[in-house]
């Protein structure tokens, strides 16, 4: 036993469902180029058939279909792929930060051969050679003094620039901590909204997109890891402590620490344990890599100061002065030419004995410091070249790691794009399907209308 207007309702459900599906298509096309957007689709299911089981059993010829409904608007998602992508984001963040910093450090320590510390050191030794063969010539002493001034200021300049680089990292860290706090607060807020929308039985697709973007950013910045709870909420952890838990976020701070650099701490003052992401790369460069290079520069500078001064103090100047230092300072940061030498180049102790203006023996002894083993098992020049080579290898290694992390991330990105991205061709095809289905449903409606009209008008006329 059928019901006159059931068909009209069924056709209407078709019209409405195709409209909803078309809406999803329109949303996809509109967002085809939106970063982080994930394709949505209306999931159509057949409406509950009539009659329901148990009622009016046995009187009809089975169940009638009653049309179609939109069960949900589904968002393309693969949680495993997303997790993997965030892990790669964290690695990429760390390696890129290391690579960028080392690139900068390389430019500071390992300048073009020809203007670097190693070349200036060679010129300094050659200056002593020149004095050793022209010990009476004041002009040549002045030249040596100028070479020494250039060399010592290059040491200090290198230290200053490395420290500037550390200070630059501090500024970046402060900015990143602020961004992390903002992002954490937004994730907490989104968690609340997502729970609320779900409680109403709806899919918060675009909120999820936004949250996924933030999680990816947090992984990249600070190596945040995520846990999905059974109720679909997300816990964001950094170094084993929660950054976001449900609707609550926990702020970080970046106060100035004991070493003159900013520390990254939780609000209660404990250090944030950062082992991945951009901040890990920056902290590693600031606290380990650059200090190591600075220490090596200091070893070279103090080796130079101590050895040259020991020899120089034993020698005699043109003015018979003795016991005078040639260099002042104790490290690469404060190495300079001794004020006595600046005041009078005659005080340069080229001679091994007094009253011997033609004696360049002490100058030659100082020139030969070039080949003395003074830093570990190396000469000063070798120690500097080792440092350059170390910086170069570290920069090259970091670049390779950053590139391969980037490549791996690209691969996963491609998979994500393949899965989540909008294909205009596909949307066009869907659009045609929905359009035809809509038209067909409408045709069913008008046909049914005509059928009812037949009953009402032709039967009623009689």
């Amino acid at each position: 036993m059928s019901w006159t207007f059931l068909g009209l309702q069924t056709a209407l459900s078709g019209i409405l469902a195709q409209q909803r599906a078309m809406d999803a298509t329109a949303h996809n096309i509109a967002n085809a180029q939106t970063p982080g957007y994930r394709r949505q689709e209306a999931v159509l299911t057949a409406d509950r058939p009539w009659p329901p089981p148990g009622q009016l059993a046995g009187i009809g010829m089975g169940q009638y279909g009653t049309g179609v409904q939109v069960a949900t608007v589904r968002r393309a998602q693969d949680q495993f792929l997303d997790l993997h992508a965030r892990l790669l984001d964290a690695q990429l963040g760390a390696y890129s930060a290391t690579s960028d910093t080392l690139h900068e450090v390389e430019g500071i320590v390992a300048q073009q051969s020809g203007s670097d510390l190693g070349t200036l050191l060679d010129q300094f030794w050659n200056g002593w050679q020149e004095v050793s063969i022209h010990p009476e010539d004041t002009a040549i002493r002045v030249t040596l003094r100028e070479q020494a001034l250039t060399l010592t200021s290059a040491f200090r300049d290198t230290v200053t620039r490395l420290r500037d680089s550390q200070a630059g990292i501090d500024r970046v860290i402060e900015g990143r901590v602020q961004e992390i706090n903002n992002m954490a607060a937004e994730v907490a807020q989104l968690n609340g909204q997502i729970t609320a929308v779900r409680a109403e039985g709806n899919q918060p697709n675009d909120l999820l997109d936004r949250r996924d973007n933030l999680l990816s950013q947090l992984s990249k910045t600070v190596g945040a890891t995520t846990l999905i709870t059974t109720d679909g909420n997300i816990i964001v952890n950094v170094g084993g402590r929660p950054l976001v838990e449900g609707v609550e976020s926990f702020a970080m701070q970046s106060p100035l620490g004991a070493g003159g650099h900013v520390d990254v701490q939780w609000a209660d003052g404990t250090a944030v344990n950062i082992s991945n992401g951009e901040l890990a790369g920056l902290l590693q460069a600031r606290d380990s890599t650059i200090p190591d290079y600075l220490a090596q520069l200091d070893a070279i500078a103090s080796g130079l100061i101590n050895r040259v001064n020991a020899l120089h103090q034993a020698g005699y100047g043109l003015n018979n002065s003795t016991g005078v230092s040639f260099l002042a300072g104790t490290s690469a940061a404060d190495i300079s030419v001794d004020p006595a030498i600046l005041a009078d180049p005659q005080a340069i102790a080229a001679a091994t004995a007094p009253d011997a203006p033609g004696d360049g023996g002490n100058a030659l002894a100082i020139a030969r410091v070039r080949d003395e083993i003074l830093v570990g098992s190396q000469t000063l020049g070798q120690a500097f070249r080792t440092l350059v080579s170390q910086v170069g290898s570290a920069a090259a290694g970091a670049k390779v790691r950053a590139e391969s992390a980037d490549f791996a991330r690209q691969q996963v990105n491609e998979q994500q794009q393949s899965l989540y991205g909008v294909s205009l061709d596909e949307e066009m095809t869907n659009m045609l399907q929905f359009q035809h289905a809509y038209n067909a449903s409408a045709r069913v409606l008008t046909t049914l209308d005509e059928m009812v009209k037949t009953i009402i008008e032709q039967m009623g006329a009689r």
Partner: protein
Amino acid sequence: MRVTTSMIAGNLIARLAQTTERIYQLQGQIASGKRVLRPSDDPTAAARARSLHSDLAQIGRYADNVSYATNLLQDLDGTLSAIANVVRDARDIAVQAANPTLTQNQPVALAAQVDQLIGRLVSLGNTQRDGRYIFAGHRTLTQPFAASGSPPPPIAYSGDSGQMQIEVAQGETVVANITGDTLFNAGGAANPALDDLFTTLTHLRDEILAGDANAVSARLADLDAHLSRVLELRAEVGGRVNRLQLSADRLDNMRISLSEMASKAEDADLARAVVDLQTQQNIYQATAASAAQIGQLTLLDFLR
């Protein structure tokens, strides 16, 4: 694989960026002539090149030192030759004066010639180069020989026995001077049994004036001893110059081979870089052209 619209664009951008980076690197190589612009381009080659450049700087210094020492020693040789000639002249005068059949005026004239020779010797002993006295040892700013009294003036040496050491290879020096005490046997520095050259000549003059032919003949032996010492010193200086010539050749060879090694380590192979650049440009053009052809096509173009 499901290929989405943004994948096509993203892929295109990544490929073009890759090719552009490669072109940028190759252009850098061609413009600078260097394959290794930063140590990270090739850490091993960069370290090697820097080490070689440091060695080249040292070798260049040694080459300069060798050429300076050679100049000094060649000048010195000239001065020694002049001194040897003075001693020979003195010897000729002594041979003449030893002849017992001299006329009345001859001894006075010969003695005057010896005096002139002494003056010439003092002036040669005080030879300066670039404002320094070359026979003064380390006391190069003080005139080493001066008559300190009159007459007869003994000529005292006020220099020292300092050697001028010039480094010509790592740990290897050459002595680029001869001190006045050795040269003139001042204070018996070379031969304690012999007077200094000035005193010998002063004695000779006095003996000629005294007409003591036997004493003059006996003086010939002293003059021969002086002459042979000066000639030995000349030979020694010549030996040093020869040794320096060998050093110069060796340094030159080292410089050439080290430069070649440095070039191999860091210089760009231009022919290859240019060919690579052409290849990358072709790739870039092909990528861009294919993008221009297919990039605009979607199903939309066929739906009406």
